[in-house]
């Protein structure tokens, strides 16, 4: 080992030490790396739920006969509804306007007579279109409940069998808990915050204060400088991720079916573009305020909205679907959800890792160029 190389190792170690001290001493680093992840995870674990079990609905019985009571009972027994029974639809109309219920069902007057006379009786389902997601579920599950009830009646009376039975199997998440996919997804948001927001602000501060130029004047090369900055934040990102995973598994009871190796490989690959983006933003703006705004707009919001985390990419307009191809989180989130819920699916993971590392290399290359140019 020659003298230059030895010097390089020493310089790098010194830089990493210096950065690590800065992280530990700076309250805003702690805030972003520890407090924000906890808050986000709690919010997504407890606050954000797309679960449609127990939607509050009203049920209007315009006539009370054994048949309608039987149908009402199957609504009450449904796991999807929390039913309040009334006898006049006006009672619920007001609740619907004021969003106290997601919808109401009407078993109309004459239902039993129509049923015995084979005159196509129908249950009316009135939903609150102002909340379309809940409205859809209420419609679907009301139709499902009615046809299950019918099938049971037919079976009891040994009438003609129901012609078609669709068995639904939800793989990986049979309880249909939205928390099970939201919590793993939010881990990628946390890594975006640490990698992009924190890194860009901290490095932008060095530019602002001129300490970056001071370091450039030392024998440290641009690559060493970059590595010295990246390694501590890389480890910090993995640390935040670990904290989140522990909470996800032990507090929120999200199943973890994959391997730790896959989890760390994916996270490490994702931190490359995240850190690269942070570094690039700081090199371009050299200003904390602009860096934070740009990091939120180009890092946080896209990983939140355009990554398939909550909103289905396939349902978006084509232009936005193309834009989403440039969002690194889009490649991480399905794999991360799979590590938790499905297990190791290496062909999918390797593809994600390759794409993420590719993004990372491009971003770092541009960031290095930007940094070098400034000094020349």
């Amino acid at each position, binding site marked *: 080992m020659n003298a230059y190389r030895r010097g390089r190792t020493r310089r790098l170690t010194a830089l990493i030490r210096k950065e690590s001290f800065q992280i530990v001493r700076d309250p805003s680093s702690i805030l972003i790396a520890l407090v924000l992840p906890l808050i986000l995870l709690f919010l997504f674990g407890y606050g954000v739920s797309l679960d449609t079990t127990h939607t509050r609905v009203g049920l209007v019985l315009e006539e009370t006969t054994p048949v309608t009571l039987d149908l009402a009972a199957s609504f009450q027994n449904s796991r999807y509804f929390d039913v309040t029974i009334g006898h006049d639809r006006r009672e619920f109309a007001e609740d619907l*306007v004021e969003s106290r219920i997601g919808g109401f069902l009407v078993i109309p007057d004459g239902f039993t007579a129509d049923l015995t006379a084979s005159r196509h009786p129908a249950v009316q389902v009135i939903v609150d279109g102002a909340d379309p997601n809940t409205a859809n579920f209420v419609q679907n599950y009301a139709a499902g409940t009615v046809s299950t009830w019918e099938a049971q009646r037919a079976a009891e009376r040994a009438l003609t069998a129901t012609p*078609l039975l669709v068995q639904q199997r939800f793989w990986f998440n049979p309880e249909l808990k939205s928390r099970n996919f939201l919590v793993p997804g939010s881990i990628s948001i946390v890594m975006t915050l640490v990698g992009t927001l924190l890194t860009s602000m901290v490095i932008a501060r060095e530019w602002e204060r001129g300490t970056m130029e001071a370091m450039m004047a030392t024998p440290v090369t641009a690559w060493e400088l970059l590595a010295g900055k990246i390694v501590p934040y890389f480890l910090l990102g993995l640390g935040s991720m670990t904290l989140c995973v522990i909470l996800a598994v032990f507090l929120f009871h999200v199943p973890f079916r994959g391997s730790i190796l896959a989890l760390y490989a994916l996270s490490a690959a994702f931190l490359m573009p995240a850190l690269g983006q942070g570094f690039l933003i700081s090199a371009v703006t050299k200003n904390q305020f602009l860096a934070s705004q740009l990091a939120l707009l180009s890092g946080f919001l896209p990983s939140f909205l355009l990554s398939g985390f909550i909103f289905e990419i396939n349902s978006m307009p084509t232009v936005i679907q193309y834009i989403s191809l440039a969002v690194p989180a889009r490649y991480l989130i399905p794999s991360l959800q799979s590590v938790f819920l499905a297990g190791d699916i290496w062909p999918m993971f390797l593809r994600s890792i390759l794409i993420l590392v590719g993004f990372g290399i491009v971003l770092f290359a541009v960031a290095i160029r930007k940094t070098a140019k400034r000094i020349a």
Partner: protein
Amino acid sequence: MGPTRLLALVRKEFLALFRDPKSRIILIAPPVLQLLVFSYAATLEVRNVDVMVLNRDAGHWGSEFISRIEASPQFRLVQRTGNPAELHEAIDRERVIAAVEIGPDFSRDIEAGSTADMAVILDGRRSNASQIVAGYISAIATGLAADTPAGQRLASVRVGTVARNWFNPNLEFKWFMVPGLVASIAMLVGLLVTSLSIARERELGTFDQLMVSPLRTHEILIGKVIPPILIGFVHITLFILAAVWIFGIPLRGSLFALYGAAFFYLVSLVGFGLFISALAATQQQAILGAFLFLVPAMLLSGFATPIANMPEWLQVLTYVNPLRYFLVIVRGVFLKEIPLAEVVAETVPMALIAGVTLPAAGWLFRSRLE
């Protein structure tokens, strides 16, 4: 208190806001981006669904079912396969969200009048979307069942459901999202502008100059509070216009009630902003503080997911969130023509929040000065 002095301060605040490129960015970039991205991208509708079909049935009914899926507007790609392993893999790797398996006796069972079975495998990793897809497939199956011989015999005794969507007949997600944006964007801008204004002066040192001017502390605070409220009204107005003219969302209720409620909403937000401002020593801290307030406020408001789905103890926390109340009013005025009494009932809590946050911020502010 001299109205001229106050007016001069308000003028100065506006000049500072519009002259500083950083604040201009805050006033323009996040609102425009939010409106465009949220309205078009943030949808829980499920369209362009890709499914895989494994049809072991040689008869008419199996292929009829598949062609009905293909004909359905929600589906984009219907891949056929003969290999269960491939189906397994397509679900595993998220190439399709659902897979339909039709057994070899499907047509035979239907013709014989016995119950025909079909399995639908759905990706639970995206349980919200897959439940909606399950709904689509069930609806197609119900249609097919009605056309089978047994179904036609049963037709006369079948019980149907008739759905009516009040307030939003086609269940368009934009009608849900855009009114919500009117409220949330006003929050974003109002909070950032207020929390940054004092932090900026502190950083630049001009705040001390303000303090030695003849202006009293409460006058300074009032001067700092008026511009964000006015800007909030401008944003709300612009977004209402965009909602009606660009997105075609009906405006059914009273605009007067909406603006009245908006005043209390903005005042309560500015109270929070001032609070952050009083605590923050630098702009950096002010931004982080605003972010720490905004993210929970957005998520715990009913903006994207219903409050009723949250655990009870968390629902309690939403009572101090002004967005929670204003969302009900905005959505109600746009889509539902909510009664005035309901608007008042939702406005009172916002007025109470403002009544607490503003004086508290003023107090904190004064105590930090000494």
